[in-house]
């Protein structure tokens, strides 16, 4: 059972972390993109 | 085709005048053989013979990396790479000239390194010299095209000396597998088996075609 948890756990954590990293990087890009604007039309 | 000969001639003449590439490759190979001597347990002929193919090809690959790292260095220093790119012919022939000159230099180093290996470890390679030379040549013809293509890329990046082995070694698996197996068969049976020769021929052919075409996109400006 611990093997199964290890396999799914490492997959979920890695993909989850990667998703967070991508979303944050995108948010940062969109912010620097329109420095003068309040609203983000993305 | 005339471009191939011109590039080949130019490379060999400059190499003959300075001899620095061949000497660097050669000294390095001999040092590796000496390191083998100190690092490996002393054994008698037949024990060493089992490991000889692998040990030899490690020397050859490292020697090739040293030579390839310098293959485009001179062109880079004189900005001659742009000049080569401007030659109004198919750039594949420029590539072929470079690859053939690398293969020739590597063959010289291989012959001398194998002789040194035979002396240091007291194994008899000379009675199989012809068959060994054939397998070495087939392996070299596989290393040279990919090595030349990737060296032309690596030379124009940061950390080029580090990047070249990282790019090249995983790409060499098919040719090294065939060459090591073929060398082992020569040492065991006197001649390589059909399977390894076939593999080397197929891999060499595919490498040459891909690299010939791919070089067009690597060399420009």
């Amino acid at each position, binding site marked *: 059972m611990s*093997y199964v948890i290890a*396999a799914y756990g490492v997959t979920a954590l890695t*993909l989850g972390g990667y998703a967070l990293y991508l979303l944050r990087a995108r948010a940062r*890009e969109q912010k620097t993109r329109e420095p003068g604007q309040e609203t983000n039309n993305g | 085709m005339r471009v191939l000969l011109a590039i080949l001639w130019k490379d060999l003449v400059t190499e003959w005048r300075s001899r620095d590439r061949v000497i660097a490759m050669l000294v390095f190979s001999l040092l590796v053989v000496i390191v083998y001597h100190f690092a490996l347990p002393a054994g008698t002929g037949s024990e060493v013979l089992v490991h000889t193919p692998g040990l030899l090809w490690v020397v050859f690959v490292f020697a090739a990396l040293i030579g390839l790292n310098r293959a485009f260095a001179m062109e880079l220093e004189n900005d001659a790479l742009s000049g080569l790119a401007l030659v109004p012919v198919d750039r594949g022939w420029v590539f072929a000239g470079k690859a053939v000159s690398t293969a020739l230099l590597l063959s010289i180093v291989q012959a001398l390194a194998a002789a040194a290996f035979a002396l240091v470890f007291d194994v008899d390679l000379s009675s199989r010299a012809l068959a060994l030379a054939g397998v070495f040549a087939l392996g070299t013809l596989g290393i040279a095209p990919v090595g030349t293509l990737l060296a032309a890329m690596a030379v124009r990046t940061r950390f080029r000396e580090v990047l070249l082995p990282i790019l090249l070694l995983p790409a060499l698996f098919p040719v090294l597998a*065939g060459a090591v197996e073929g060398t082992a068969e020569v040492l065991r049976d006197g001649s390589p088996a059909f399977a390894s020769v076939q593999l080397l021929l197929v891999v060499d052919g*595919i490498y040459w075609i891909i690299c010939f075409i791919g070089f067009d996109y690597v060399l420009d400006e």
Partner: protein
Amino acid sequence: MNGLGPVASKVRTASGALLGLLLIAYAWTVANAPVDSVQGVIQKILYVHPPLAYGAYLGFVITAICGALYLWKDDERWDRLAIAGAEVGVIFCTLMIVTGPIWAKGTWGKWWSWDPRLTVTLLLWFVYLAYLLLRSFGDGGARTARFAAVYGLVGVALIPLNYFVIEIFGGRGMHPENLERGSLGDGMGLPFLVGNLTLFVAFCWFVLLRWELENLRAASLLRAADPLARAREEIAT
């Protein structure tokens, strides 16, 4: 506006929404999947390991095809999609290489064997790791993109060559020869299907998101390099 075309953007939104549903179904079906009579509960790694493998191979194929399209059409968007394919492919491949030995340790008793498929996958992983290093060590311009495209094509050409080597020199594998539907036990088909679907949709979502990020980065680089265009845009808004 975001960094994707209208179609790709819609596909990403849809796949993101679908992914939420699929994750629930995935967890539920895997938890309720029957326990294998021979291997025991560890067999449930089946529902994550092969789907990761398909994602990895798909990523590398995308990289090679987009690299070729970039060389052909000279359109940078293909190159950015190639980056996305390589990066997501490397992550899926890493996870496959991690989950495989976990399964192997539990069933074969050892972490690693030089099984043909393992060997080829490991080599492929190194090739695409080298691809990403080539990108990061290059100057980042069109030249780097061209080098990477050529290297990506060399990388896929290596897949059949490596299999050819293994076929010639033998080496029997521990992997089952073929994952046909019939080889799955009763009740295992559905979780396997759901697992494949979930990780495939996740793969698409990741690739599209990574593509969008790369497009946004390229756009902001372009703006930074061209103050005139930036001023014009500010006046327009």
